[in-house]
């Protein structure tokens, strides 16, 4: 390839944005097509096996590399698909109607996976490593069952003499079916990762907590993703049965699950192509070298440990980083712009009406909120002040589902939100800004803003289309006008912004879903006096623009003076006083608390 003449072509493709990710599927298609001609039919047969394992490994890579949870027992779904497919194919010898059930052999394990994940993640979204152990235990159960129910599965020796798929000779045409599956799954996953759903999945792995505060039901999203990953594994299993002609308990077991993880890790868990590559290269090499070279497995184990320790994105990630020295490709520079749809009606409640009624919340005998009764009605900016340990942040936490309350009621817009999950509260139109600015640090600013724009606007299936990436609203432009520095940083990862810019970004993100009630926790923490002033003005402006209420926790009295229409003072978990700032400052009880006379 002549470098000089291709350079203009390359820069055009870069300018079109997004061309580079198509390199992998195109390369893959070329390699797959060439293989039987460059090698021979037997090689194609052997590689075919590892292509199937590779598709299963892509499922592992999806969950682990993108969403941040690790399935340790994925062979369960692969093997289930294989057993079901084997059984169907054998039955189809007698009656061809059975062939119609073949898709079910892939779907059933996927549904099972979705159900398991849905149940587990609904309990607690912190369950990461425990979920891994559950998947491990499930795969072992599968192994035991496969051995035990020998009338169905052929027991220890496996289900043998599985016929080929009609018209697809095992050592010949079957390869093309396998290659097609590998290409479809790689392309499909690669495309999905570049759609809004991919961005949201990355956001889950970076800061799941934060994403919930934008109204995304992350536990349900994770369950669906897990179901999808199981579908990959099961579909590969469905082809495995006719390809190999035999399914043994090893196909559902612990060892194969382990190998899937290793292949995904070494190949590259962040990329579907990488995972596939890992399975083919490492898996095929292992099968050839294992018997000749006694220490081969030792070498693989060392490589795996080295990858975990030093190269978290595997070989594919390493190569991508080498090549990715140019401008970012996520920019839709010349893409058309589309007006964003309206906010969900449920999120646009008519008035900001908040009422805490004698709320108590405590843990191990210590009261954190101790009989808090507080009313807030209508738009405008209020401040919540009080000494350390008064329970100000805890008040926000009880409202937004992060701290369960044991008695009393919390009402917002006629809904009792006492023990609601964070995402449900966010969907009511309550936005939250944290003291330590919490954004998606590895996504660039543009993607961060996009996620905020999608909050309370994006329907399920829309996340699969490219159009939400082109949404714009006038509100976004107005907000960016308040913080011009953000406009220059659109392509920078949010984690690299300065403290001031990160506070600004989080504020803009909180405001984009047009909340009715904004909860801001020390929005000026770490800001210079100039930045503080700008932030305070922005809060006031935005509250007016959105006709919303803002409740701001602040310590800086000059800032409070600037913007507060009304001040609440908390002490020891309850409301001590309220009124205008002057009234509160003159209040004897308040002065005593702050001067430390009575504590």
């Amino acid at each position, binding site marked *: 390839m002549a470098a000089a003449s291709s350079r203009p072509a390359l820069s055009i493709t870069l300018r079109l944005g997004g061309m580079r990710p198509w390199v992998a599927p195109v390369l893959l298609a070329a390699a797959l097509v060439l293989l039987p001609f460059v090698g021979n039919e037997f090689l194609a047969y052997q590689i075919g096996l590892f292509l199937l394992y590779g598709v299963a490994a892509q499922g592992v890579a999806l969950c682990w590399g993108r969403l941040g949870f690790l399935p340790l027992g994925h062979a369960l779904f692969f093997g289930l698909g294989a057993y079901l497919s084997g059984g169907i194919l054998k039955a189809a010898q007698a009656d061809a109607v059975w062939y119609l059930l073949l898709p079910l052999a892939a779907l059933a394990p996927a549904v099972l996976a979705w159900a398991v994940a849905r149940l587990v993640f609904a309990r607690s979204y912190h369950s990461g490593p425990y979920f891994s152990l559950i998947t491990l235990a499930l795969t072992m159960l599968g192994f035991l069952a496969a051995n035990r129910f020998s009338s169905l599965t052929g027991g220890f020796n496996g289900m043998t003499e599985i016929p080929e798929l009609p018209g697809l000779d095992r050592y010949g045409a079957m390869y093309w079916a396998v290659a097609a599956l590998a290409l479809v799954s790689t392309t499909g996953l690669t495309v999905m990762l570049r759609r809004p759903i991919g961005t949201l999945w990355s956001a889950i792995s970076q800061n799941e907590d934060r994403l919930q505060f934008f109204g995304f039901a992350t536990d349900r999203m994770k369950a669906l993703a897990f179901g999808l990953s199981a579908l990959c594994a099961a579909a590969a299993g469905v082809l495995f049965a006719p390809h190999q002609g035999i399914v043994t308990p090893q196909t559902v077991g612990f060892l194969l699950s382990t190998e899937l993880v290793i292949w995904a890790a070494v190949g590259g868990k962040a990329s579907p192509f990488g995972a596939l590559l890992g399975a083919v290269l490492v898996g095929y090499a292992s099968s050839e070298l294992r018997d000749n070279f006694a220490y081969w497995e030792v070498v693989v184990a060392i490589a795996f440990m080295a990858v975990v320790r030093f190269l978290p994105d595997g070989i594919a990630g390493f190569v991508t980083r080498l090549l990715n020295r140019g401008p970012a490709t996520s920019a839709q520079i010349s893409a058309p712009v589309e007006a964003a749809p309206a906010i969900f009606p449920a999120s646009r409640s008519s008035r900001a009406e908040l009422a805490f009624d004698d709320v108590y919340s405590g843990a*191990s*005998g*210590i009261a954190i909120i101790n009989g808090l009764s507080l009313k807030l009605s209508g738009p405008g900016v209020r401040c919540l*002040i009080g*000494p*350390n*340990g008064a329970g100000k942040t805890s008040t926000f936490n009880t409202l937004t589902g992060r701290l369960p309350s044991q008695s009393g009621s919390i009402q917002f817009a006629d809904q009792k939100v006492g023990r609601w999950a964070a995402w449900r509260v966010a969907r009511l139109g309550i936005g939250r800004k944290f003291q330590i600015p919490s954004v998606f640090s590895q996504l660039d600013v543009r993607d961060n803003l996009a996620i905020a724009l999608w909050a309370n606007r994006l329907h399920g299936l829309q996340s699969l289309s490219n159009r939400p990436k082109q949404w714009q609203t006038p509100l976004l432009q107005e907000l960016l006008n308040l913080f011009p520095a953000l406009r220059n940083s659109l392509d920078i990862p949010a984690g690299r912004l*300065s*403290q001031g810019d990160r506070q600004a970004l989080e504020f803009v993100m909180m405001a984009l879903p047009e909340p009715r009630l904004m909860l801001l926790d*020390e929005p000026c*923490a*770490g800001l210079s*006096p100039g930045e503080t002033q700008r932030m305070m003005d922005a809060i006031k402006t935005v509250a007016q623009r959105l006709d919303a209420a803002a409740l701001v926790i602040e*310590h*800086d*009295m000059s800032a409070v003076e600037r913007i507060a229409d009304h001040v609440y003072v908390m002490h020891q978990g309850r409301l001590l006083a309220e009124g205008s700032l002057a009234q*509160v*400052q003159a209040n004897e009880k*308040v*002065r005593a608390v*702050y*001067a*430390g*006379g*009575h*504590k």
Partner: protein
Amino acid sequence: MSAALEFRDVVAGYGDTQVLRGISGSLQSGQVLGVLGRNGVGKTTLMRALSGFIPLMEGEVGAAGLDLADVPPQHRLAAGMAYAPQEDTVFGDLSVSENLRLHLRTRDMSRYQPYFQAFPRLEERAAQRAGSLSGGERKLLSFTRTLGLLAPLSLMDEPTEGVQPENITKMAVLLRARCEAGAAFVVVEQNLSFLMQISDHVLVLDHGECVAGGPLALFTREKLESYLVV
């Protein structure tokens, strides 16, 4: 005679955020430096920087002539500096007496006699889990332990938070007794009466900077209050 504690132009914070923007001060043995300021001005950050739990972005900290820059927090007690943080200030799963003998080589608790006399509840609850004590009692336990370390320099972050007024007075007396013996203290406090009872010098922080400082005698109560109040 080198100062018990000396810090110059300390700049520190979290991540790339500066919270402290250049704080200086010094302290001789037998003296108490009281640090005050409203919430969020950087008092706890200063204590963490002095005790080594957060790194210094700029500036120096020295105790008794020793430069503490390369001394990690777990070695500072041996270097003569004790630290009692504001939160999580006892070992909840250990009993009261275990909390007190953690750093001792023997089980000899005689050094705690004056404290048990002042706070009989502690002695009563010696075998109880420290986590089951009330907030104020935990602060008393932490106070007792810190003074019992007999360190030449002690950093204490809000030692009287949640403690009842009659016990606060006793704490002041016990602390001054340690000063007579030559110990130096840096104490962050919101309780003005306590602060004024114990301090020789004060340092007032606002927005990460020192806005006032000097011998206590130069400040009236009203002046100090004005730095704190809403």
